[in-house]
């Protein structure tokens, strides 16, 4: 089934969320796609608790508060969020509309695409050891998609955050788990940490102090993980290694859409914030132009100008009358404040 809308926004960070608002004021409806499991982008994922001091009129606001307020501001326009998925493919139709396919096999159709993807999409951080690509997705798993294959196996889970601890506690029920971390302090939620320590005490899991130094494939489909702790080395033979070292950002499939790029950033003009491909726009940290500053407030400005141009694609026969929310009854109706 194809879901139709006016504009597809890629990225639910602060700038993508504000774009919903600016487009909404012009009667343009949006679907928003994001790879994370909730809106907010870097603000919610990397620094939800850290204060931001350069949002106009907000003396101080945390990443999570900013996200919550932007979500509330966008809500009257009923955006549809497609989370936990990435855009895999875009196709231009004869009608000049775009067909967008996501990694969860959703198909969306729209007049314009707005890329507000920040530094790209969040993906698990990979181990920086050369020549282990063949093992990734086989013996080295950065995410658990199918618990069944791990039943009764020897697992080495590496990391000290929530993912590492949650999976240790969960997989201890079905597999032989060793948790490895560089110190015996964990930044994971206190509850998960106490549960893990209890499992260790009951000898239901093993804890190993150390870091991954090298990985070798063995002949029996297992791998040998060389573990380094200070200056001591130790070999651990396991069926699977599950490294959880947080997330990093990658441009991903966007790099292959034929847009003019400059050092992995998308070139736009500063009048419309349109890319080299008509009806594809780029706003926020992902774009570049002379004088670009990677600030949230710059992204907000870019969203407003982009919306003006999207209007022409969405309603080619209509005149766009510029209005203020302070005086326009029509805008106030849309915002549900009348």
């Amino acid at each position, binding site marked *: 089934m194809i879901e139709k809308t006016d504009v597809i926004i890629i990225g639910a960070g602060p700038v993508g969320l504000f774009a919903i608002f600016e487009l909404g004021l012009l009667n343009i409806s949006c679907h928003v796609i994001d790879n994370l499991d909730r809106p907010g982008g*870097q603000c919610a994922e*990397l*620094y939800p608790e*850290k204060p931001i001091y350069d949002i106009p009129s907000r003396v101080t606001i945390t990443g999570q508060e900013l996200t919550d307020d932007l979500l509330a501001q966008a809500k009257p326009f009923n955006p549809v969020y497609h989370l936990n998925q990435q855009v895999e493919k875009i196709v231009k139709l004869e009608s000049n509309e775009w067909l967008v396919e996501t990694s969860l096999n959703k198909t969306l159709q729209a007049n314009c695409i707005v890329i507000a993807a920040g*530094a790209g999409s969040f993906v698990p*951080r990979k*181990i*920086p050891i050369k020549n282990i690509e063949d093992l990734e997705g086989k013996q080295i798993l950065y995410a658990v998609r199918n618990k069944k294959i791990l039943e009764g196996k020897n697992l080495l889970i590496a*990391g*000290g*955050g929530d993912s590492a601890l949650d999976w240790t506690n969960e997989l201890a029920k079905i597999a032989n788990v060793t948790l490895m*971390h*560089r*110190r015996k*302090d*964990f*930044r994971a939620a206190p509850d998960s940490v106490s549960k893990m320590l209890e499992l260790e005490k009951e000898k239901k899991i093993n804890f190993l102090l150390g*870091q*991954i*130094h090298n990985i070798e494939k063995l002949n029996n489909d297992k791998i040998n993980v060389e573990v*380094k702790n200070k200056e001591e080395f130790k070999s651990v033979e396991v069926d699977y290694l599950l490294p959880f*070292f*947080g997330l*990093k*950002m990658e441009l991903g499939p966007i790099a292959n859409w034929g847009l003019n790029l400059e050092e992995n950033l998308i070139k736009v003009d500063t009048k419309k914030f349109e890319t080299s491909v008509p009806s594809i726009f780029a706003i926020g940290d992902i774009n570049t132009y002379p004088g670009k500053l*990677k600030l949230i407030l710059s992204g907000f400005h870019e969203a407003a100008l982009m919306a003006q141009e999207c209007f022409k694609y969405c309603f080619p026969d209509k005149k766009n009358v510029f209005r203020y929310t302070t005086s326009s009854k029509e805008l106030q109706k849309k915002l549900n404040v009348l």
Partner: protein
Amino acid sequence: MKIKVTDRDGNKHELEGDTSSTLMEIIRDASLDIEAACGGCCACATCHVYIDKKWLNKINTMDDDEESMLDQAFDVKDTSRLSCQINLTEDLDGIELELAPE
């Protein structure tokens, strides 16, 4: 003030630093290969460096936030620091460091 950086290929770079910057900012603005994804708010561990031992005790000490963020880095050593958390001071003129693997 001088900052002496060894990159991941072993090449040495001498950068000009100033006391109003963090170490990460100087490395990033010299276009060396450091991601510094979060922009310097100690939220990502992609500006991980190894500080030459003889300079370690001249640097502001590591707080819990930084120690805990280093959990996301690879091959963490006793000399590991996140360069965004190091404020440059006159004492650090000539500091030597190496970019960690990424």
